[in-house]
């Protein structure tokens, strides 16, 4: 039986950033990695090891310096900025550590935003946004301004926005980094539930305890994968 095409396939990906003195900083040192539909992956590693860089490349926010990146089998390394924007809009859902929402905009409008860029009509936008908010049990805050809700609630709204376009993969960069332990566990439970429903999820964390919610743990040190274990 042939393997199905992975959602994410990185092959020997490197990333170099130019520094101001004319030197380069090698952030990724040849990453090779496949992630399939339905997986729940945690990427771990010390600060500065290249976790976020990896996520930016997987999330089509940045392109590799060398190596190949296939998203659902398509090589997107030569896409234009606008084509990448469309990929992010259709295929990727992001949850960041902080600055996830437009603060003077309502929760509902924040969740509707990706659908606005996709050209989905207003009525359907509202319907789908409300359904997504329902899934993370925060629909009663739909009309609150985003700066009037708590940190845990903000992350739930960000999750709702990440799933609302029904993307191929949900990427979360330290989603619990600003939360207390209890709220962190609550958020991770939401990710777990989404994964049970078939969503593919990649989260980045440096906390072992948080990583334990995932089904596969990849460790990166100095821009290289040092371990990759499935539970």
């Amino acid at each position: 039986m042939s393997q199905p095409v992975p959602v994410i396939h990185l092959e020997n990906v490197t990333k170099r950033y130019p520094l101001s003195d004319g030197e380069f900083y090698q952030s990724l040192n040849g990453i090779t990695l496949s992630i399939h539909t339905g997986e729940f992956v945690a990427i771990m590693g010390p600060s500065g090891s290249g976790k976020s860089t990896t996520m930016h490349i997987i999330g089509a926010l940045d392109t590799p310096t060398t190596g190949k990146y296939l998203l659902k089998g398509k090589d997107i390394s030569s896409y234009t900025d606008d084509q990448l924007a469309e990929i992010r809009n259709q295929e990727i859902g992001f949850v960041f550590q902080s600055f996830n929402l437009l603060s003077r905009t309502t929760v509902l409008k924040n969740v509707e935003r990706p659908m606005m860029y996709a050209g989905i009509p207003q009525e359907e936008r509202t319907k789908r946004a409300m359904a997504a908010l329902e899934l993370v049990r925060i629909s009663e805050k739909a009309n609150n301004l985003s700066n009037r809700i708590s940190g845990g609630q903000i992350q739930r709204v960000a999750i709702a926005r990440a799933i609302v376009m029904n993307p191929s993969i949900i990427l979360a960069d330290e989603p619990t980094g600003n939360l207390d332990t209890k709220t962190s566990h609550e958020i991770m439970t939401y990710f777990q539930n989404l994964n049970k429903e078939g969503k593919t999820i990649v989260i980045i964390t440096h906390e072992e305890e948080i990583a334990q919610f995932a089904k596969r743990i990849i460790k990166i040190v100095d821009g290289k994968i040092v371990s990759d274990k499935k539970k």
Partner: protein
Amino acid sequence: MEYKEIISSALQALRRNILRTSLTMLGIIIGITSVILIVSIGKGAVAFITNELSSFGTDYFQINPGNSTFSSLAGTNTLTLDDVEAIREDSSLTNIKRVAPMALSNSIVTANDIKKSVSITGITSEMQEILRPDILYGEFFNEDHDRSAERVALLGVDVAEDFFGEETDPTGETIRIKDSTFRVIGVTESSSALAGSVLNNAVYVPINVAFNEIIGEERIQEIDVSVHDTEQINQTIEDVELLLRDRHDLDEGDESDFQIQSAQDILTTVQTITGLLTTMIAAISGISLLVGGVGVMNIMLVSVTERTKEIGLLKAVGAKEKDILTQFLVEAVVMSLSGGIVGIILGVGGAFLVSLVANIPFVIDIVAIIIAVGVSTLVGIVFGLYPARRAARLSPIEALRYE
């Protein structure tokens, strides 16, 4: 595109910094206000003069002694009744309808036991057709009065009220001007907004009587000449000028010792002045709009920097360059257009106040308002474009990493 959404988020962004937004709009507000104000006032002034002229008619011109408007007031005495007669008698001046000389003076008038200083105007019957007053009581002078030395007087309506009270017919009463007794034969009222207060505050007597009994010499302040054909008025003016220069023994190159001005000239002068003023103010407000535009650009650049992370987030969730460009451009346009609208409101309001105070018609110039809306939109687009492009071209990771 989702303009409703984009405009409402632009308004939100601008409201967040309401003081900064208002200060930025100031240049545009000042520019637009001054243009709307001056255009409205200019149009009001022209409408006012046009209206004035239509109450007197445009079919006449006036001759004053001396070579400036002020010399007739200063008592220059270069026009005579013989000049008047010469213009009347010249058979080649076929376009001329009436020639009406006027003499001005001030004198103590006594009537009904009241004593007041009143302006006395010596005129002839021909003046009726030029001043076109309403006759409230009695009648105007006729040709017999022009020739005889009979001491008769017409009262302006304000003078009549001062001496005899409101709604009273003083016809047949007598008044004393200086040392002579005059019989009142009528009361007149001018509806002119500009000249009415002067015309209604005067006592009119036949011009010969004025020279003999009141002024003591022949001194003409103005000759009003009406014509049959207004189209030919400039030719007639030239002919009269030649005739008078000839009579006054002026050589070629000598300056005339009188001035001729037609009603049309006055309108043209007013139009020239308001046109000039409008151009000047337009230039000044152009500078103000430029400064306003640079202000908009500056604030938009600050805003792009402040909202770098927001731009990163929007790009992460799928905003394309054009989406970000549109959002920031709309914000710049909303800001400058709001300034423009405030300017229009202030300008129209100011013009309304000026029209009340100066007693001129209130004119709203739709074209000026449309141009103001267009110009302020354009300022937003032109000066918002550079910051908006900068925002649109930010790389998403740079924007997300920005601290």
